[in-house]
């Protein structure tokens, strides 16, 4: 399409120049355009498109899995920056990939516009008159005597062709009478092949337009949501843990609603494989009607006005209560990161504001406390293995390591919430206190300074993706038309049949000669021709 737009300026620049170079430029432009819209170029571009997509599946992609990209940078420190400059980690958003498909679509437009024009003209025109020598055609039936005068017979044959048996419309047929007393019937069929062909290609443009609009006006946000009223979330950018907005979407365009996870249900097989899981939530907010106990699951998203909520994953969030040296208690609900299919989960409960002297209000940065934990929903006989044996909470146990010191949270550098700050550990500013301990629900651990941590239990959490793509109906409609057009273009067959009816020597009867031509590859045409001539 870019070339469609750039070609007129070439022509417009021409007048001020001497006619020679201008015309040459025009000729050059026309030549380029012809090259671009040729089938050979289209084939090369199709092939290039396929080849260009290969690195997108072999190399990790930012849009698919950013962690894998980061790992690739760590594993290949020399190669990764070079690949990154080639946009190899964003293949499908890269300029070179866009160049290929835009050229391909330009070629497509250049190819189908003239064909559309020709096809519309052909649809309006009547089938051409019979050639002089029907016996020169690939299909031919010698003249046979029929009852009725020439014109009546011709009209009867036209009627026969128009009332075609089977699927689809009948033949387009026309009768022409000639000065020598003969009449010809010209019939054509199979316009749907070209119609389907054009529909397929136009629909491809529809898909591209739909995808483009979706990327402009769509948005998504990801959020980890822990069960409970105190951990409910409302749909605003600040409350999403990760988000992406389309180019034409602002933060204020997101529909306002709040979501509270009230329950999470799972059933597992004895092998530990999940059989089904679903989340139960209550929805409220100005932009959506309030509903209680709505259930959604994998394959069955929660569809709200202007947003869909998808359940992508789940896990456990242990609840820990820490009582510091001044007797102050804090409770933390900490989502743990799932590390295997049996839901062995790991995480860190940090208490940066613990051990603040209530008398002075002074925080001692060396007395911050954090607990690194490994949660096993079903603890094996030997818990030091450190792996859960079943994903449901049959025998829950929490392995805890206590740390004290400076958590390093004040530096303003974002760190993983699932791990302790490795820099602080290496520098010795954060040190382990005592040994690992296995806590059961309700159990507690007392640290050497007399402070205490209690394992109160767990709450389920879900990983949600909240998304909206307003152009989805455009894409869906386009692909439906695309499929219809594809089937028409692959099954349709363009062919013509002619009858020449002349007066017979016997009064009241006429001689009928027939010829047929398949305009596209159609092995069954001979049979069809014989069948139609037989019925005549």
């Amino acid at each position, binding site marked *: 399409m870019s070339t469609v737009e750039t070609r007129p300026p070439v022509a417009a620049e021409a007048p001020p120049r001497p006619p020679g170079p201008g015309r040459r430029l025009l000729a050059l432009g026309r030549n380029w355009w012809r090259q671009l819209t040729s*089938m050979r170029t289209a084939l090369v571009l*199709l092939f290039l498109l*396929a080849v260009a997509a*290969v690195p997108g599946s072999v190399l990790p992609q930012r849009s698919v899995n950013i962690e894998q990209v980061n790992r690739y940078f760590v594993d290949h420190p020399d190669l990764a920056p070079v690949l990154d400059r080639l946009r190899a980690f964003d293949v499908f958003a890269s300029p070179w990939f866009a160049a290929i498909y835009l050229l391909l679509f330009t070629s497509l437009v250049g190819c189908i516009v003239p064909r559309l024009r020709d096809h519309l003209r052909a649809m309006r025109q009547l089938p051409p008159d019979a050639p002089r020598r029907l016996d020169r055609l690939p299909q031919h039936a010698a003249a046979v005597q029929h009852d009725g005068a020439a014109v009546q017979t011709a009209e009867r044959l036209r009627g026969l062709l128009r009332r075609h048996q089977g699927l689809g419309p009948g033949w387009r047929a026309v009768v022409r009478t000639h000065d020598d007393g003969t009449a010809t019937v010209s019939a054509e069929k199979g316009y749907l092949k070209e119609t389907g062909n054009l529909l397929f290609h136009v629909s491809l443009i529809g898909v591209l337009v739909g995808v483009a609009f979706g990327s402009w006006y769509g948005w998504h946000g990801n959020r980890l949501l822990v069960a409970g009223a105190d951990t409910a979330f409302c749909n605003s950018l600040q409350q999403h843990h990760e988000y992406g907005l389309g180019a034409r979407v602002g933060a204020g365009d997101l529909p306002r609603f709040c979501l509270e996870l009230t329950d999470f249900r799972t059933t597992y097989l004895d092998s530990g494989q999940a059989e*089904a899981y679903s989340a139960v939530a209550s929805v409220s907010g100005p932009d959506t009607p309030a509903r209680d106990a709505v259930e959604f699951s994998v394959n069955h998203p929660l569809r709200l006005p202007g947003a869909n909520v998808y359940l992508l994953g789940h896990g456990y969030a242990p609840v820990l209560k820490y009582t510091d040296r001044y007797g102050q208690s804090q409770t933390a609900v900490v989502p743990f990161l799932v590390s295997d299919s049996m839901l062995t989960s790991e995480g860190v409960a940090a208490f940066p504001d613990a051990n603040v002297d209530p008398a002075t209000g002074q925080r001692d940065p060396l007395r911050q406390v954090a607990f690194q934990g490994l949660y096993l929903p079903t603890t094996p006989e030997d818990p030091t293995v450190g792996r859960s044996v079943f994903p449901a909470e049959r025998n829950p146990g929490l392995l805890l390591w206590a740390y004290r010191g400076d958590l390093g949270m004040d530096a303003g550098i974002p760190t993983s919430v699932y791990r302790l700050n490795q820099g602080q550990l290496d520098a010795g500013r954060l040190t382990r206190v005592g040994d690992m301990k296995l806590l059961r629900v309700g159990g507690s651990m007392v640290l050497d300074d007399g402070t205490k941590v209690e394992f109160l239990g767990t709450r389920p959490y879900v990983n949600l993706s909240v998304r909206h793509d307003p152009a989805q109906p455009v*894409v869906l409609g386009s692909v439906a038309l695309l499929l219809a057009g594809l089937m028409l273009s692959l099954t349709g067959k363009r062919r013509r049949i002619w009858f020449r009816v002349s007066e017979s020597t016997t009064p009241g009867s006429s001689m009928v000669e027939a010829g047929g031509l398949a305009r596209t590859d159609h092995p069954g045409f001979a049979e069809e021709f014989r069948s139609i001539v037989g019925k005549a």
Partner: protein
Amino acid sequence: MAVLSDQLLVVAILSYLVAMVCHAAEYAFGNRGRVARAAVRPARDAAPAARELAVVGARPVTDLPPSSSSASPAGARTRDWPQLAGRAAVLAMVVGALAHLGSLVTRGVAADRVPWGNMYEFVLSAAFVGSVAWLVVLARRPGLRHLGLFVALAQVVLLGVAGMVLVTPVVPLEPALNSYWLKVHVTAAVLASGTFLVGFVAAAMHLVRAGYEQGRRSFPYSLGPRVPGAEALERLSFRLHAFAFPIWTFAVIAGAIWAEAAWGRYWGWDPKETWAFISWVVYAGYLHARATPSVKRSTAAWIAVLGWATMMMNLFGVNLFISGLHSYAGVN
């Protein structure tokens, strides 16, 4: 039921193997075979009847009077056996396909669901569609029987790999797969893959035959005289691809609709999606090349072969070596 399914798979593999051996026998000793041609060579100018005999029995032609040669009982018996081998091969193919179907059905009953929930079952299903597509082609064009050798070979290899490498115990579906879109999306993908497989065999044989007709005699082209005419193969290949391509398109669309419900987006360039797209583009290129008179038919056939290579990459490469959202192979 699961055990019965495994046993039926063994029956299917053995039947396909028998079909392969019988086809190979017909191939080697049939009236267009190597032995036959060797026998014909000295008698190339002999009368057709005598040549007919020489073709079959590899007996000294001069032993029999020419007039009675074709009616001789010994001649008739020896002439028939490669033909019989060919028929037996078709029968073995049918038996194999039935056992194959039985294996799929019992697997489905054992798991109480559609039998294409993991890679093992997918390969089994797609290979079964390939068998059925081949038998349909054979029923309509008995003259193509020689191609059965390659179909049987492909079946033995695919089922062998499935039975030895990919096999997994019967388990119910993962929650993400538990959707009616599994039936729609995977059925379409299986149908398209099976038909593309037979289309690929026809395209490859077309290339062999066309190369042979151009005078090439090295290994793959030496198979040329044994396969049907290049034009018939090319047309068969086109019709199979033209049949499978809309089904493949539908499979991709159904997958996109399902992905919207399961993962929140209809297209995300997951490796499996990327390779489905690559295959789609390559096969679209094939159809365009086939429809363009200035592009040689052999070029189009090469594109079809490339298309099948991308399908194989998607099935084996992506499932086993690249991790993504479609990681349901269940193979460790």
